[in-house]
Each structure stands twice: as C-alpha cells, then as structure tokens.
C-alpha cells in the first residue's frame, strides 16, 4: 500500500491536493495511506521550499501549487499492485 504524505500548513491549495489525490486513487482502485503533515519542522525534513508538497513512500514527488490531475494519475500506474 502506498504511503502518501501531503505537506502543508493548511491553506486551500493543500486541502485541494489532498482531495485530488484521494479522488484519483479511488478512481483507480488503489489503496493508499494518506497523511496530512502540518507541523512545519516535519515538513522541513523533506527539504521542500514550497507547499503543498507530496511525498510518496518517502520520496518527494511534487512541491509548490496543486499538482495537475495528469501528474497525480502518473503516480498510480494502472498496473501497480498494492
């Protein structure tokens, strides 16, 4: 199961990112463990300079602005098994 963290201090862009990821994952039938990281110190351990940021299985895959749907879909390739 993919471990996904959305890094952000809670503005509307961060919330939109969470919604988008949940929606795409649900649409593809992929199970994910989604966590919202709002503590700034923890956010900085990933060395991102712009929020919202997205971390999948420990790797930063996106930072700054809401990711495009295309990009999010690219994180869940159809052939992936849990």
């Amino acid at each position, binding site marked *: 199961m993919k471990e996904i963290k959305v890094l*952000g*201090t*809670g*503005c509307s*862009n*961060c919330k939109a990112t969470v919604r988008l990821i949940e929606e795409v994952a649900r649409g593809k039938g992929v199970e994910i463990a989604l966590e919202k990281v709002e503590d*700034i*110190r923890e*956010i*900085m351990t990933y*060395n*991102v*300079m*712009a*929020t919202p*940021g997205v971390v999948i299985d420990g790797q930063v895959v996106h930072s*700054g*602005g*809401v990711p*495009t749907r295309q990009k999010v879909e690219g994180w869940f390739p159809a052939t992936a098994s849990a």
Partner: protein
Amino acid sequence: MNVTAKTFSWPETHPKVFLLIAALAWVALYRTLAPASEALVAALPVDRASHLGSALQFFFYDTPKVLLLLTGVVFVMGMVNSYFTPERTRALLAGRTEGVANAMAAGLGIVTPFCSCSAVPLFIGFVQAGVPLGVTFSFLISAPMVNEVALVLLFGMFGWKIASLYLGLGLFVAIVAGWVIGRLKMEAYLEDWVRNMPHVQASAGLSALTLSERIEAGFASVREIVGKVWPYILAGIAIGAAIHGWVPENFMASFMGKAAWWSVPLAVLIGVPMYSNAAGVIPIVQALLAKGAALGTVLAFMMSVIALSLPELVILRKVLKWRLIATFVAVVAIGILIVGYLFNAVL
C-alpha cells in the same frame, strides 16, 4: 497511453502558433470594448447621460477590460514563473553581498511564484542555503506586494502611471526595508530550531520544461488566480461604477486629502491589521481615489494592507521570535509611510 483525445490539445502541439493567435485575438477583443459597452448601454432603456447610464457604461466597459487584462498578464506571468522556481531563486541569491542581493531578491520576488503558506518553507530554505537574512526579507516583502494581479488591476483601472509608481515604490520599500533589517544583524532572533537546521548546498536544477508545458503552466495560473479573484474585481468595479455615477467630487478629500498630515500614518496604521490579496483591496482603493483622496495616502494604504498580512505573520511566528517580527513590521510600515509622504509632497 492516454487514448481519450483532449478536445483542446492543439496549443500543445503547436505552441508558437497558439501564442501568436492568442495575442492577436486578445488585442482584437480589447479594441472592441469601448464601442461595445456604449452599444450595450444604448440598447437598454436608460438615459446615457443619467447617473445610472454613466455608472452602467463604466461597469460594462471596465469589467471585461480588467478581466481581459488580468487573464493576459496572469497567463504571461504563469509562463514566466515556470522559469523561476524557489530553488533557482535561492541559488541565485545564496552568499551574495547585500545591497545588490537585496535588489535582486526584490526583483525575483515579482517573478517567483509565491503563496503565503509557502512563506515559511521558503524562508527556512533560504536561510539553510546561506541567503543573508535581510535579502530573504527583501524577497518576502516584494513577493506578495509587487504581484502581477495588483499591477494589472492598478493599470486597468487607474492607468499606467499609477501602476508603475506602485511597482517602483514597492520594489523600493522591499529593497530598503530588507537592507535595513540586514544591517540590524538580527540573526539571533530566528527561532533556535531554524538556526540549527543543516546547511544546504543551493543548486539550481535545470528546469527542462518545453514551451507547451510552459503554456500549460500559464493556463493553470489563469484558472487558479482569475478563478479565485474575479468576484473581488466585479465588486471593485461595481463600487467604482457607483461612485463614478453618483458620489459628488471631493467627498473623500476632506479626510484623506493632502492637507491632513495625519492621513498617511492613519492609512498605514489602518492597513496593518487588515489583510487582503491584491484584488480585494482594489474596491477600497477605487472608492478612495476616484473622489479626491491623495494618491500617496491611498498607495500607502494599499501597500500596508497587502505587505503586512496578519495570517502570514502568524505563520512566520513559527520561525521568527517576536522581536524580529516586530522589527519587520515596523521597518516596512516606516518605509511605506515615507513613500506615502514623498508621494503626496511631490505630486
């Protein structure tokens, strides 16, 4: 492979053609605005010379005009922003001597995409890479304040002189305030955990985006910004239209005109606890300017509202101690005050 073809995918396959056609279409549309608004008012059962007629023409002309300007500029800025990531900006500023760096930081603040919730990660990221404190502040002041939405709205509603004044003075405040804060050597007032963060080598990863990806970024920017901001614009223009049609001249001059020396400090003080994005404050600016408020006072008010934002300060509290935050607010407020007075004195 994405089998479902997007209906509007030709801009991506022919980016240069798209840009050319878009530019031409934009200019053509822009030119029809004045005659179209007159025609629209003529078609309604309203006397053109009346208050209502005058207000309506103003509204019908200004609304599409400002929206068109905003869409155009936000699109172009969206493309420009794709060249300037925070990482790249940081790499450009790391380790530079102050003075020049402050000016660069203020300039980069205009073109680097910035959302206020990113203020903290960005601030820390800059500190980690060795960007001097004052330079980081120059960036933090200019980024929200001197933004394309403010400039477009000022240009579209009040003309290029006011827009370029705002741009010039905004940069000036950002550079000088940041430099002053740097001179005060307040690094000790960063929160301890920030100073203990590991040092980072600032490297600008080459952003290898294609032109069509940059166009996509432009579109995304328009959807995000114009989509968020258009209600404020409508409100601003509606207020402007009402004032244009009904409020007598010099109504505001009595308490915001040049003669009242206390109007500038009052405007700045009122602006500090208020926060709005650039578009939201425009209705108020419109109301003040159109009927007699002094330009310097109004610009000072606008800068104070945008640059000193309570939500952003609350977020920055996590990385700065109170004394540094207070210093930041004080230095910027004084800078804006000086700008306001200078303006009123010179014009």
